[in-house]
Every structure is written in structure tokens, then in C-alpha cells.
């Protein structure tokens, strides 16, 4: 079984799926000969040519819109790349009012099987506009799937799953995990279902719910506090919309304590929704207030190194929050 990092798993899966399905087309800025600024499409232009790996004008609105227009024909299954999630907002109207509403407003006559890939997240000296977490904006929208796989195994399995859907999928990849996170990627054609969380650590004392880079930090934190006798379930949500309510509730009903951890702003965020679900459906099981750990509610990650460090989550901060909740 091959060991890959996240970007290798992504690239390998894109190549394998394109070899298998001639309907798959990739478009985006610099996805062609350059192979993408993160190298997600490296070598694909050389293998599949300019009709399937299409360099676009520097215009996010129309990268998404033309993807919608291609998907509507049923001729192609476009995967469009937004170079940084921070730049997706010119396309927000196209995603919200066109892609996400198309099936609903035409009673299923028209559908938009479109994957929009976007690297998100901080910790790479990207400053305000190359570090944002944008998932909550899209998680609010009925008609979209929003996923945030963060392991090589999940990237392959969830990309393959997304390609089987007949609806638009926002495929968010934490850019710091691209080369940081490595793991085994089986060669067989497995699928990681959209909408299913994964249990990364198991314990009875509290539940940590997370995704993305923060999830990896939470696993490290869980290992640290385990040595102190605090055992935690660590849930990797993997899919943001729809949330895996069963996985969240089953764990919280067992532990009675929930800590939700993510890099995105706290106000009206994924943690807000997870907390609401727990509050409404597992209230009687709770032994402590539902707790959240996120960066401060500021626009995004500042550039200057000490400010960036102060903003970002890390295993130490998460371990401390776990200790406090366990002691409640």
C-alpha cells in the first residue's frame, strides 16, 4: 500500500478517475502546464491535454459559472479549482443562486454535478487572504454538499464519492495538510461516504469534534492527555453538510461532554450548529456546558509570525481545553 501525503493522494485520484471517466474535465487558474500552484494537477495537462485540463481566465465567477454550464449539458463532469478559498466569493452568487438552487427550482429537471475544489486554512504565512476558512458560508446553503477531508485516505475516498453525486460539492482541502499529513492509500476502488464522520480516537471522558488541520491537532492533544488519564473520543466530521448527527450524538451521549474545535471563526459556524444539535437532542446526557475552542473572532490569520502563531490552534491549546472540560 502506498504512503502518500494529501496532495499526492489528491493528484493520484484525479489522474485515476480521469483515466476511467472521459467526462471528467478540470478547469481553473494555472491548472494546465504549471500543474496548479499547489501541484494538485501536476502532470495532468501533459497526460490529458488542453481539452480536459483547461487553464482559465483569472476570474472565479466564471470558473464556477462555466463549470455549471458544462455540468448542465450532462456531457461532462467538471472539477473546477479555486486557487485559494479566500478568492471564491466573486463566485458566491453563482454557487448559491445557480448551482445550489438549480435542482430545487426545476424540480430535478436540471442538475449540476459539479465539484468545486478549494484550498483553505492558515498556518502557511498566507495572511488575511490566503488563509481563510470559508466553509460556514457554504454549509448554510441547502442544495450543496460541503466536505473537508484531511487525510490521504479520505481525500481519495471522498473525491471518488463526490464524483458519484449528481449535485454540487464544495471540496475544501486544508492547504497546510497538503504536505504535512501522510498516510496509507489503498489502491482499490474504495469510497468514503459523504456525510459520515470518522472516530479517530476512542475514550469515555469527553468528545472532541473537529475537522481539517485542527482535527490532526486534536488527535495529538488526545494522545497527550491520554497519558494523564483523560480518554477522549475524537470525531473527524469530514463532511460539513450534511453533518453526521448520529456520530456526534452517540459519542456525546456516551461521554456527556463535548468540545468542538475548528479553525474557522466561532460566530455562526460549524461549531454553532454542532452545539445546537447536541443541545437539542442530547441535553439530558450532558455533564458540562458544550464548549468550543476556535481562534479569536477576527477576520482571518494575520501575517506576522507571532500573530499567526497566536491565531492558530495547536495541540497544546486543545489539550488544555480538554483538561478543563474533563475536570468540570
Amino acid at each position, binding site marked *: 500500500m502506498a504512503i502518500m501525503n494529501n496532495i499526492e493522494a489528491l493528484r493520484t485520484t484525479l489522474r485515476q478517475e480521469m483515466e476511467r471517466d472521459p467526462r471528467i474535465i478540470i478547469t481553473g487558474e494555472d491548472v494546465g502546464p504549471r500543474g496548479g500552484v499547489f501541484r494538485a494537477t501536476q502532470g495532468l495537462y501533459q497526460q490529458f491535454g488542453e481539452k480536459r485540463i483547461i487553464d482559465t481566465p483569472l476570474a472565479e465567477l466564471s470558473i464556477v*459559472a*462555466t463549470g455549471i*454550464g458544462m455540468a*448542465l449539458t450532462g456531457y461532462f463532469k467538471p472539477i473546477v479549482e479555486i486557487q485559494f478559498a479566500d478568492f471564491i466569493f466573486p463566485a458566491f452568487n453563482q454557487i448559491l443562486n445557480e448551482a445550489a438552487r438549480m435542482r430545487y*427550482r426545476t424540480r430535478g429537471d436540471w442538475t449540476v454535478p459539479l465539484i468545486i475544489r478549494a484550498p483553505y486554512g492558515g498556518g502557511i504565512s498566507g495572511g488575511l487572504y490566503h488563509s481563510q476558512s470559508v466553509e460556514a458560508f457554504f454549509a448554510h446553503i441547502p442544495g450543496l454538499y460541503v466536505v473537508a477531508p484531511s487525510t490521504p485516505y479520505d481525500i481519495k475516498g471522498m473525491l471518488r464519492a463526490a464524483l458519484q453525486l449528481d449535485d454540487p460539492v464544495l471540496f475544501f482541502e486544508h492547504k497546510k495538510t497538503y504536505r504535512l499529513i501522510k498516510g496509507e492509500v489503498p489502491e482499490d476502488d474504495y469510497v468514503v461516504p459523504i456525510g459520515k464522520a470518522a472516530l479517530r480516537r476512542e475514550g469515555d471522558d469527553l468528545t472532541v469534534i473537529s475537522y481539517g488541520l485542527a482535527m490532526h491537532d486534536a488527535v495529538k492533544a488526545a494522545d497527550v492527555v491520554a497519558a494523564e488519564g483523560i480518554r477522549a473520543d475524537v470525531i473527524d466530521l469530514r463532511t460539513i453538510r450534511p453533518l453526521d448527527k448520529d456520530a456526534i450524538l452517540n459519542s456525546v451521549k456516551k461521554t456527556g461532554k463535548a468540545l468542538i474545535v475548528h479553525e474557522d471563526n466561532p460566530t455562526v459556524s460549524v461549531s454553532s450548529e454542532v452545539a445546537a444539535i447536541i443541545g437539542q437532542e442530547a441535553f439530558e446526557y450532558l455533564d458540562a456546558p458544550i464548549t468550543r475552542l476556535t481562534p479569536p473572532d477576527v477576520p482571518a490569520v494575520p501575517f506576522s509570525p507571532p500573530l499567526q502563531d497566536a491565531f492558530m490552534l495547536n495541540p497544546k491549546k486543545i489539550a488544555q481545553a480538554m483538561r478543563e472540560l474533563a475536570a468540570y
Partner: protein
Amino acid sequence: MATAARKSQKSQQSERPSDKLTDDQLLQLYKSMVLGRKVDERSWVMNRQGRAPFHISGIGHEAIQVAAAATLRPGYDWFYPYYRDLAFVLAMGMKPVDHLRGLLGKAGDPSSNGIQMPSHYSNAKLRIGSISSPVGTQVPIAAGTALASKLKGTDEVTVVCLGEGSTSQGDFHEGLNWAGVHKLPFICIVQNNQYAISVPMEKEMAVKNVADRAIAYGVKGLVVDGNDVLACYDVMFEAVQRARNGKGATLVEAKTYRVTPHSSDDDDRTYRSRKEVEKWKKRDPIMLFEKVLFERGILTEDLRQEIDAWAIQEVDQAEEEAINSPYPDVSEMTKHLYGPMPNWEEA
């Protein structure tokens, strides 16, 4: 007209494509215009009677719409309309009852079965794409569809319509840019009715013609009298030929006028003179075409009345059918959010 966007010399000198239309085809164009007009007028009546909450009108726009439809292959070419394209979608194969069901929010409207506001047309079988209300979004989507047709190796053409007001949106710019870069089989028809609700054209743009912008995108720009159905046919014929034969995209600007208020909720007396509106009513595209048909001896007063009576009967029937149609069941509200999820089992 500006040099960058004038009719080609060739089409002025040689025989016009519309010269080849038979008397039957000419009458068909006329009937399409009349039917569109009658359905539109009835929609106003139903609104003023308090039976329809909202109507948005295409009265005065019929010439470019039916002419364009006549140059396309319905169900083969892709068409992204906008909300004034009633006569266009009828000419492409939709039925008066489709529009009137939509007007009343009744079940069976193929556009959206009562989910969208009226005139937000869609018909997948006819390859009529669905539109939303934020304007101009359909232009880059249509460019994507044209790109798909080209990559697939078909000779399908994609046509997208919008008003001149929507050309101020970035979506319009980006869509035209793609059409130029990829030399797409794409025709963008701007129905320039000179107002974005109340804002006159000179406050929308500094150029005289929307089509003057075509050169900046590397596409062909053509300006036409949008109230002259045969001139519209000629221009669309040229644009469709270019698209079908791999010669690239065209921006067609049809100069017309919105003789009605923007919608049933608008009062245009607050921003333009009656004199101006009356002047344009004298250039009504149906009246102008009648004159041509009378001159050529194709239309007689008897035939005109016959066609009128036929259209009114069509509308009467459609109205009755729409009124007698049920509303969609409330359970429809939570349907069609997502397609079925595959039956996955994690490896």
C-alpha cells in the same frame, strides 16, 4: 452606428437571408409574435383582476425573440432565456398554458412547478435553461454550455438573452470573455429596451451601443433594429451560421423599447414621459411587420382578424386550463433538494 458594431457590408449588398423565407414562414413568424403578445396581454389582465400576483412583460420585444427562435433548432440548440422572453420560449416549443400556470403558481408549470416567480422559464426537454432573478448570471453559464458543445464536437449553438441593464454586471463581461477566448458557438442577445427599471441607458453605460464592447472580447458585434423582425432574422441568421460553422461568438444588440412598466409592480410614469412611450408604441414590432406583410400581399385584413381570433382562442383555452389546474401539494416544498445518495459501503 459605430464602426465596430455595424451590420456587415455583405448582408446589405447581397440577398438577405430573410428574402428566402416563404410566405408560410413569414406568416408563422407573424403568428408567433401575435401569440406571444396575446398571452402577455392576458397576463396583465389577470394581474389587474387580482388573480395573478405578478407579471413581467415582454411586450415590444417580440420581433427579436421570434426571429431568433426561427434561426435555431429547438431541442437541439441550448437556450438561456431571460424573464421577458415569453414570445421566445413559445416559439421554441413551450405552451401558453406553461406560462399561465407559472403566472398563477399552479402545478404542471414545466419551468418550476410553482417554485419560482412567473416568467423564470425552464424546459429541460427543449434545452431551455433555467434562470434565476439576479440578472446576468446566465451569460457565463451559457458560455460553459457552449464550451461543452464545442469540446464534445457537436455543432450545437448556445443562445443567451438579457436586457441591456444586465450588461453592467460582471457576469456579462466574464461570459463574453470566455466566448472570445474559446471562440465559442455562442450568441448573446442583448434586448436593449433602454431602461434598467427606471435608470435610462445613459446612466448605465458611456457607449452608444452595447455591441461596441464586442471588439474588446474578440467576438463579433452586431446592432439591429429590434422592432424589425426581418432585420432581426438576418442578423441572427448570420450569427447562427458563424456559431454553427466554428467561426466564433456574436454579441447581438437588438434596439427596442419596453412599452410597459418594468413589471406589474412598477409605475413608469415616475421616470419617463408619456410622449416618449407613445412615440415607441407607433413603432410596435407587430404593427411594423403587418405593414410589410400587407404590402407584400401575404396578409389581408380578413387573415389578420383570423389570426387574432386564433391567438385569443389559444389564450382563452390556456387560461381556463391554468385556472383549473391544482396548486402544487405543500409536500413539494421539501422535495428536490438533492438527488439520491448512492448506496455506499465504506471499504
